[in-house]
């Protein structure tokens, strides 16, 4: 049973990753395919390996690429924060709604997502224009781009938060109230800490795809919104510089492994602390 999935994953995940890495180390060439070979059979028996680090040198050397990477992280970070601030109360409200309405409310969150990617960009911007929010001045601005990203990724934040919040034992809040906690402090000291795994999941699900986003900055952002997804696309389709595009993909991937790695570690430390606290409490017989 495992053979087919393994073969599939190997062919469509591991091999492509290796190829991207390989091509990122090649030099661009005016040929089909437009990159040089890594292995050359020279005069000796051993193949000569011709590694070109030019693309990586350019990424580190040319401020265009570094700026694109940093800008992407910034845009994705802000959008993730907005999604969290907007999505958390939403998830909470849905989780507290009467049970027979919950599915309908949840479905209403998912619907724009399932119809979304195809048209939201076009329709968000026209809708904003029509609703008179700054008329035509809003199109092709950072604000429009942020709105577009938040619009597209909000469901990815709400769903894991909702899943976490509904699983919470409501008697905990009653206990907190019995012990004299105000609703607000009960939220901060009971509900929120317990929902943290959902928060991390939502943050990862929004942040990572948002960093590489191409369509939204292209349609809604101005020419100054050179996010890494856009730069990669340009390198590949307009400049036909496949090694450069591959090197950008590798750089982006490394970046994405570092940032979520940090988040995981934070989350892990937090969970470990809670685990210790629980052990302490159970030893005291609480």
């Amino acid at each position, binding site marked *: 049973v*495992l053979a087919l999935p393994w073969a599939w*994953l190997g062919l469509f*995940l591991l091999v*492509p990753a290796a190829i991207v890495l390989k091509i990122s180390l090649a030099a661009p060439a005016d040929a089909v395919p437009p990159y040089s070979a890594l292995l050359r059979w020279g005069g000796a028996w051993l193949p000569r390996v011709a590694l070109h680090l030019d693309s990586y040198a350019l990424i580190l050397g040319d401020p265009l690429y570094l700026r694109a990477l940093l800008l992407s992280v910034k845009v994705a970070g802000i959008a993730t924060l907005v999604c969290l601030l907007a999505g958390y109360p*939403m998830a909470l409200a849905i989780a507290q709604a009467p049970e027979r309405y919950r599915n309908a409310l949840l479905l209403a969150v998912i619907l724009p997502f399932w119809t979304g*990617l*195809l048209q939201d960009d*076009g329709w968000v911007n026209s809708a904003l224009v029509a609703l008179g929010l700054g008329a035509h001045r809003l199109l092709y601005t950072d604000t429009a781009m942020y709105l577009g990203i938040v619009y597209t990724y909000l469901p990815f934040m709400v769903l894991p938060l909702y899943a976490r919040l509904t699983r919470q034992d409501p008697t905990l809040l009653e206990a907190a109230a019995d012990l004299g906690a105000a609703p607000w402090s009960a939220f901060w000291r009971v509900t929120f800490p317990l929902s943290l795994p959902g928060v991390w999941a939502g943050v990862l699900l929004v942040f990572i795809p948002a960093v590489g986003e191409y*369509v939204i900055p292209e349609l809604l952002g101005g020419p100054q919104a050179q996010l890494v997804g856009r730069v990669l696309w340009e390198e590949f389709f307009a400049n036909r510089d496949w090694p450069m595009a591959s090197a950008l993909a590798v750089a982006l991937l490394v970046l994405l492994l570092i940032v979520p790695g940090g988040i995981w570690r934070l989350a892990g430390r937090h969970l470990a602390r809670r685990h210790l606290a629980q052990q302490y409490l159970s030893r005291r017989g609480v």
Partner: protein
Amino acid sequence: MRSTPLLTWLIVCYAFLYAPIGFLIAFSFNAARLVTAWSGFSFRWYVTLAHDPQLITATLLSLRIAAASATLALLVGTLSGYALARFGRFRARAAFAAAVAAPLVLPEVITGLALLLLFVALEQAIGWPAGRGATTVTLAHASVSVAYVAVVVRARLADAGTLLEEAAMDLYATPFVAFSLVTLPLMAPALAVGWLLAFTLSLDDVVVASFTSGPGASTLPMVVFSLTRLGATPEIYALATVIVAVVAAILLVVARMQSSAGRRDAE
């Protein structure tokens, strides 16, 4: 605990999510070409849409690709999800789980680029797939959707528990019989949801399709994307309205299926 601020916020957020859709549906019935000024009710853009060969070809192609890739993803994704939910600790399980879930969080530009380079390399090495087009897009979409199907199937199996399968085995069902008479029906709602999810993902995707497609094989989202770049038209709005209606209908059916499955479980 019911609080008014939360409820107000919920309404604001739904307004944020649905205002654009409402606007778009309204203006698809606009008589004029302008998308910002209302000038009377008309179906003319739906008529234009129905006679636009480019959009119709692209729609048919997209539907074909979506159906094929969803079916392929269902096959591989179900096996993966089943393995993750039922095989206990097998060798390299962590690596397998990570590899299955990876496409969920990989940026689309990376997935698209990597798959395209794979297809190019394959073509050079063994001559297949010859050129890029519907086949390569189908394979690319399937490889992304496998992750979604696997997640849905795995969650369903974890929820259902192993009790029924164990009972079947106790009653001398062979593993194969237990699987086809017990596990498969248990999974059925998840299979339907997974397939539909894969189908809509494929129908929505611009980036991966743009990378892996070739000349003459433009999917619907690719066409819409290039048209939107030139500015929105009521015709696109009409198309979007049709899509919203179809997706809403599909979602309602899925919700029905899920809730009836839930009720069966409860009984």
